[in-house]
């Protein structure tokens, strides 16, 4: 969500601090995903403070058969930065979706989106990411890798 491990750790610690306080006072929310919800909004808040990515029209490419190999050549931090640069709610959708921890309903609850909206955001993101992959780790280049 932030593309910056230090900022993410700060947010995480502040969430845990608040959670401990709320737990001590017996005021933990009934929403079982409140921690992730809280994390999402804190991350969005934190990201607003820093440099903002310019809204640009992203190129879109069809998902290639070589995509897994291209992705395999990426550094995890590159992916984190790419996702954190996406505009919200696409950013939240991608972060929660690729965490691979939530079911469909939970994703909709966390992102506060409808099914069609969430699907559209993810579909677009896949194609934009594919275009970015093609530019960063071209298929020919990745195919040459052992």
């Amino acid at each position: 969500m932030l593309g910056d491990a230090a900022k993410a750790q700060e947010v995480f610690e502040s969430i845990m601090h608040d959670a401990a306080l709320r737990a001590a006072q017996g005021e933990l929310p009934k929403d079982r995903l409140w921690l992730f919800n809280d994390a999402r909004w804190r991350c969005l808040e934190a990201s607003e403070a820093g440099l903002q990515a310019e809204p640009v029209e992203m190129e879109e490419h069809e998902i290639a058969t070589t995509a897994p190999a291209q992705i395999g050549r990426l550094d995890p931090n590159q992916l984190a930065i790419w996702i954190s640069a996406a505009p919200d709610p696409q950013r939240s959708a991608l972060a929660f979706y690729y965490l691979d921890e939530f079911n469909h309903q939970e994703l909709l609850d966390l992102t506060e989106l409808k099914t069609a909206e969430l699907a559209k955001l993810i579909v677009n993101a896949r194609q934009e990411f594919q275009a970015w992959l093609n530019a960063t780790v071209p298929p020919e280049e990745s195919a040459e890798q052992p």
Partner: protein
Amino acid sequence: MRAAVFRVRKTEPFAHQRAFDQAVADLVQAIPIPNQVTEWLSKGTFVAAPRRAWKSILFNPAMVAIGIAVGVIAGIFVFKLVERLNEFPAENTAKRLLNVASSAKPVMLDPVKTEAGALGDFFFMKHRLPHYDVPPEFADFKTLGCRVFDDEEGQRIAQIWVVEKKMQFFLFPAERDLKSGVVRHFSGWRYADQDRWTGVVQERNGVCFMAAIRGSEKELAPYIAKPKE
């Protein structure tokens, strides 16, 4: 919808999409997490187990099936219970006599034009049938004819045809206990029906009276609603 999903799952683009998502998810798992955070993460669970709402439990197919089964069993049980509660001694005889009523013709009876209540003495004097009295609720009805006959069990049956709605009255011995021979009494009016004929039966002094009509209970109910002395 499901067919569409199955069709999509077999397509090549979907396979590419899944491979793409899996690769991204694997890469996400490889994003380094600071040690301090992993220490926290190992301490507990951050997502509580989902609570099963009563609605999801209620609409579970197994629960629905169990509910339907229990409903059917309960329905049968209630039906049998109500049937049992409505049973009364001499019900079988009453049903048999309703068959007699449905096939009876006026010519089969001796013409007698009087009030039904007056026939009690007639049955006693002529046929030696004590207590074959028509209850007060039906005693005022004008008769067309009557007869006394033995049914297939050898019981003496008195049959009266009245003007009112072509109703027929039957007087017959109450059922007796097979071992002791004691009359099996029952109180109040009881309904019996057979082949679109309905009878309302009362037992008094070991003799049952039945008023039979072609129709339903609703047509007989007004006659017994207000007991007469």
